[in-house]
């Protein structure tokens, strides 16, 4: 991860320029502007095109609809970005969300728990998994991607066991033959379905809130600085007296918790424990998080970028379906735009070396 993504750290001596001798020509300024705004610009262009072809696209309902459909992926992407920032990589978010979703349903349908209980269960699961990842990585020195991949499989299996692999809804049969009797309370369903003032979907509000907090922490708080420092050069951070291990664990706990909130949202939207849910979440979230590198030309993991990335993909899919592009074209166009946007952003910001 680190080696590949922060390569300028390695090529540094080739670029070394004495402190504060940066002469900025208008051309470079334009280039930098493009580098910063590249993807955002593309996003705006896209919206324009879609609106032109299908006016409904710009309708308030539809825009919130897009945000809503992007919300869950965006949440997970925020989580991944945080772990990327500490030089890690949480591959388990997808299955955390899926498992949390099953857990919530189990609490509601089998244990007749309240909406609160279900939500608490989700969070507990997310935090626990995050701790588990963190400890594996810091105490047992398992490489991040390896540890979280293990957790991925672990959860993917675990979530199936209580129900014997079946989906979980009122009246579904448990392995022991009993039939479930609990139901999803409206309070819980509202969490995923209600709209504030009948306009803004709750998931969007949740996303906004979490994003706000994450941005504050990552960009403006000392914790965020230490997280990035740990990712940039753990030894240096440790020598500076930062409890890097604890921070890394923290990052995984955070991403676990956020992912589990995503899971709760899924459960609330679907209204049952769906075994198939969230299988494509991981890749989409990672895609969003990595697009985030490019969004503001920061070339480092960042929360706002990740969210933008998720919305970007959401807009694309929504617009394309509106234009009735066959679904098999959608994946392709998604990929093509992704690759194009990236090639553009990264090559434009490239410095000449040999």
């Amino acid at each position, binding site marked *: 991860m680190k080696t590949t993504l*922060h390569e*300028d*750290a*390695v090529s*540094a*001596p*080739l*670029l*070394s*320029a*004495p*402190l*504060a001798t*940066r002469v900025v020509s208008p051309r470079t300024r334009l280039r930098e502007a493009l580098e910063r705004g590249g993807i955002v610009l593309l996003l705006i262009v896209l919206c324009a095109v879609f609106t032109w072809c299908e006016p409904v696209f710009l309708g308030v309902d539809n825009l919130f609809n897009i945000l809503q459909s992007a919300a869950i992926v965006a949440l997970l992407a925020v989580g991944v970005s945080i772990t990327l920032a500490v030089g890690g990589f949480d591959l388990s978010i997808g299955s955390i969300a899926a498992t949390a979703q099953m857990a919530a349903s189990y609490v509601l349908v089998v244990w007749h728990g309240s909406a609160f209980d279900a939500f608490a269960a989700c969070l507990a699961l997310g935090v626990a998994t995050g701790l588990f990842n963190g400890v594996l990585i810091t105490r047992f020195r398992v490489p991040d991607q390896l540890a979280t991949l293990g957790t991925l499989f672990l959860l993917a299996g675990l979530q199936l066991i209580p129900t014997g692999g079946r989906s979980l809804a009122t009246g579904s049969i448990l392995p022991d033959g009993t039939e479930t009797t609990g139901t999803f309370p409206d309070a819980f369903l509202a969490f995923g379905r209600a709209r504030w003032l009948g306009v803004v979907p709750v998931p969007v509000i949740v996303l906004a809130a979490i994003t706000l907090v994450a941005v*504050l922490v990552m960009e*403006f*708080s*000392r*914790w965020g*600085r*230490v997280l*990035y*420092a740990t*990712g*940039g*050069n753990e*030894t*240096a*951070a*440790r*020598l*500076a*007296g*930062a*409890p890097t291990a604890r921070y890394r664990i923290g990052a995984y706990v955070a991403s676990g918790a956020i992912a589990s909130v995503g899971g709760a949202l899924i459960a609330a939207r679907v209204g049952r424990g769906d075994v198939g849910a969230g299988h494509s979440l991981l890749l989409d979230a990672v895609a969003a998080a990595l697009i985030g590198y490019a969004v503001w030309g920061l070339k*480092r993991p960042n929360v706002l970028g990740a969210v933008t990335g998720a919305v970007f993909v959401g807009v694309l899919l929504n617009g394309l379906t509106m234009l009735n592009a066959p679904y098999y074209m959608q994946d392709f166009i998604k990929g093509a735009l992704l690759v194009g946007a990236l090639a553009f952003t990264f090559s434009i910001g490239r410095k000449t070396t*040999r």
Partner: protein
Amino acid sequence: MSDAPVVLDARGLSKRFGPTVALADFNLSIRAGEVVALMGANGAGKSTVVKILSGVLAPDSGSIALRGHPYAPASTKHAKTLGVATMHQSVADAGVPTLSIAENLLLERTSSARTRWFATPSSRLRDARGIAARVGVTGDLRAPLSEQSVATKQLITLARALDNDPAVLMLDEPTASLSAAEAQTLFEAIDALRARGVGILLVSHRMGDLRRIADRAVVLRDGRHAGDFPAPLDCDAALQAMIGRALTLRRAESGKLASAVDESATAELAINESAINEPVHSTSTHDTAATIAPVRDGATHAGDTARHRGFEARGLKLFDDAPPLDFAASRGEIVAIAGPIGGGKSRLARTLFGIEPIASGSMTLDGAPWQPHSAAQAIASGVFMLGEDRWQTSLFPDSVPFASIEGTLSFPFLSRWFRRGRVARRHERRVARDAIRRMTVRCKGPSDRVVNLSGGNQQKVALARWHVEPARMLLLDEPFQGVDVGARAEIVDILRANAADRVTLVFVSDLEEALEVADRVLHFDRLRIETLTDFLAEH
């Protein structure tokens, strides 16, 4: 002075790494406001001492007292909070390349739980400026650290060390990559601390520096205490204690290798005498000019004769707006290109090596036009370069399977030696053994991992690599970084012994080093080149 209270007192420290005894029953005490120099050959155990005192390593045995209380730092953080600040030898550990200078300066503060959790970027910048001021770093602190020169990185690290007013400050090779002027700023900072009663432990290979500020020198040899030397420092005695034999510096003249301790030693002393009270830079160079420089410049001023065997640059411009460079170096000659850090030496070196484009002008090698466009091509045609900062430009991290001495040595020549692809370990090993012997690398064998070698020995390995095959031109960028006097003398010998049939260009920021190694010294700053005499005439 001597009645000042003892701030740090270490007794019977020992540390082994496998079979290597890095430190054996070592005692050290530092008084308030005292600057203690820790001297020792490469691998003597200096860094180990520093690491133990700063809580990076735990001693196998021994006890330490800080201000009279037992001191056993559980971690670097712990050491810091107890009042022992450290500037480690490796710049790479020092900062976070991906973060801005400001954020690096504030790393300790942000890492400490006592700091307020929220801060606007602007307020951060303000705080950072405050810290930067202490070591005279100015300018845009938002630039990423990765874009800074080694010197700047070092100064930033020091600034951080000073920030949390320590009782004891340890500096491991602080001046290794600092120009005289920058070293001066550093020393002033140290003097200020001394006045505030901070105990200071200074590890350095530069006699000049030590004589300039050390109150006392403690010498290590093979991890053992090998003598205490009060100021004024008796260099010869100290060096002898360090290396265990009378040091014989070679007289700086191409060809013959007559050993003559007296002249060059005194020459060096001459430099250092004057270095004690006056600012190092100007005076020392004046003396040098007086004693040595004219002779040297007289030696061989390879002119623009046609069929010139060697390297020649005509109207070479590194940048469009840079002055044109005209200079030549013949085969068998060692030319030092000396000048302050950030003057463009590395840039020039990389240009000659062919990995930086030239704005205009021409270069010739042995009369034939020299226009390389890749490292591969340069190496293939016998032009080698040893980059500055070995861990960035030469050595491989331990995660690389062949990051052993032999693997490091053979890497550039794999395609030359093993055309058909299969790497013959035996050949590789033979070459490595030979190199280790010639370079006197302190190690267990060719298959040692490079990470486990001491700084100086790592540097020797990096240098050895470019001696396993004959070179037409050898470019050395800061080849003496973190190399002790003894080793430096050895390296100089090696360079001379092999200089006979090649052009050797040494790019150094330390004049002392330049004078020791070179037949001829060219001064280079702001991309402008001139003979040392001309340069000195101006001053």
